[in-house]
């Protein structure tokens, strides 16, 4: 039987992480094909509601990736995002959602290599956790 493959949604910021993913692509770096990418203007644009909606509607994991602190195209977008994510992550863990389901990373436009690493790690983590059961709407 074929191994179970998780579905992971990746929110990538237009200016860094999306370009990082592009670089990984043109450099022909191999990474797991489990991610579906949504390009967003900035990691600060991510509303926790979007993340909850992903978990509710069948994604096994969510990754949000943005520019490194200090590199934000909008100067401070990712600083606000960082606070939002810190609080979101604590709350989800407190409620009992596995910590690996929702992950965050900073990937710059020059870090194709790191992008592939991040996707490998997230995919491995979610594979270990198995299919999402909590919060899923039946």
């Amino acid at each position, binding site marked *: 039987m074929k191994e179970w493959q998780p579905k992971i949604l990746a929110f990538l910021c237009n200016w860094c992480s999306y370009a990082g993913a592009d670089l990984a692509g043109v450099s022909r770096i191999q990474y797991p094909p489990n991610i579906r990418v949504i390009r967003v203007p900035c990691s600060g644009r991510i509303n*926790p*509601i979007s993340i*909850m*909606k992903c978990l*509710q509607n069948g994604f096994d994991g969510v990754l949000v990736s943005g520019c490194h*602190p*200090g590199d934000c195209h909008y100067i*401070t977008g990712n*600083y*606000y995002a*960082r*606070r*939002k*994510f*810190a*609080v*979101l*992550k*604590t*709350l*989800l*863990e*407190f*409620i*009992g*959602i*596995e*910590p690996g389901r929702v*992950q*965050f*990373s*900073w990937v710059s436009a020059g870090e194709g290599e790191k992008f592939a690493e*991040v996707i490998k*790690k997230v995919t491995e983590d979610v594979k270990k956790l198995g299919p999402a059961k*909590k*919060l*899923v*709407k*039946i």
Partner: protein
Amino acid sequence: MENIEKQLRETVKKLLKEKKVDLVIGYSKGTLPLHSTPVFITHEKDVDNLIFDATCGNNLAKYLGKSRKPKTKNRKPIGIIVKGCDGRSIVQHIVENQIKREEIIIIGVPCDGVIDTRKLEEKVGRKEVLKYQVEGEKIIVEGKDFKNSLKKKEILSDSCLMCKYPNPPVYDIFVGEPVPVNENRKPNTDNLESLSPDKRWEYFEKEISKCIRCYACRNACPLCYCEECFVDQSGPQWFGKSPDLSDTMIFHIVRTLHTAGRCVSCGACTRACPTGVNLAPLGIRMEKEIKDRFGYTAGLDTEATPPMADWNENDKQEFIM
């Protein structure tokens, strides 16, 4: 406490007489025993309706949100009677530009905790209470064929048992003597945090599956003043409106996120809940996280910047790859 009621009535009477305020928001006896009700006093003759005791659980700051406070031009300040947690909610309203400091006269009262009617009902064996009387540390309840004397600290609401701010931090007039801070009372969710994530999920699943989506928690919350809540929006409709467990869980998660860094753990949501969902741990956990991470405690300083509308280069980011 009787003394406080007397002083309170005199203070309010004086304020109305001197025309310093034209409206005072306070508590009066409700139609059922053990349930006080908010009262709006505009005339001196109504002052005797005011009460203040351990049944005054509502957070009156709710009435100060932009969409709720009375809109009359050139009106005098509104007087409002506040306990410690209500006082902090008001500070939070000022921080969030819902009301200006000069638009209100805060009448602070010391609060030793309010009772949880559910705990009380358990104690008297779910019989109907027809009369009650507060006597110092004791509450005497009377029903059809029973009379019980209960210790107040046994039936205090959970959030009061963790309260570190029994007196309002900001006030114009203080009635009575400030109560000393009880050092044994501090926010804690350790009993839940010592459980494994799966056990915690089981606990919250059990709690939240009681929810019938009546939104009483949201309507009682002083900070839920949005004109349209995200669960009421229909274009796009974010989440389903039926009491489906997934939708309900997400409603409570997102509501907690929206009040993170603003919630003062007054327990109004838990008290308002008709099915007894224990929502307090969520707020308390968030308050702790905001304090640890951003060094901010909601409702203490009217000049503060709300933590979620602010940032710092040196915020911890151990969870980010």
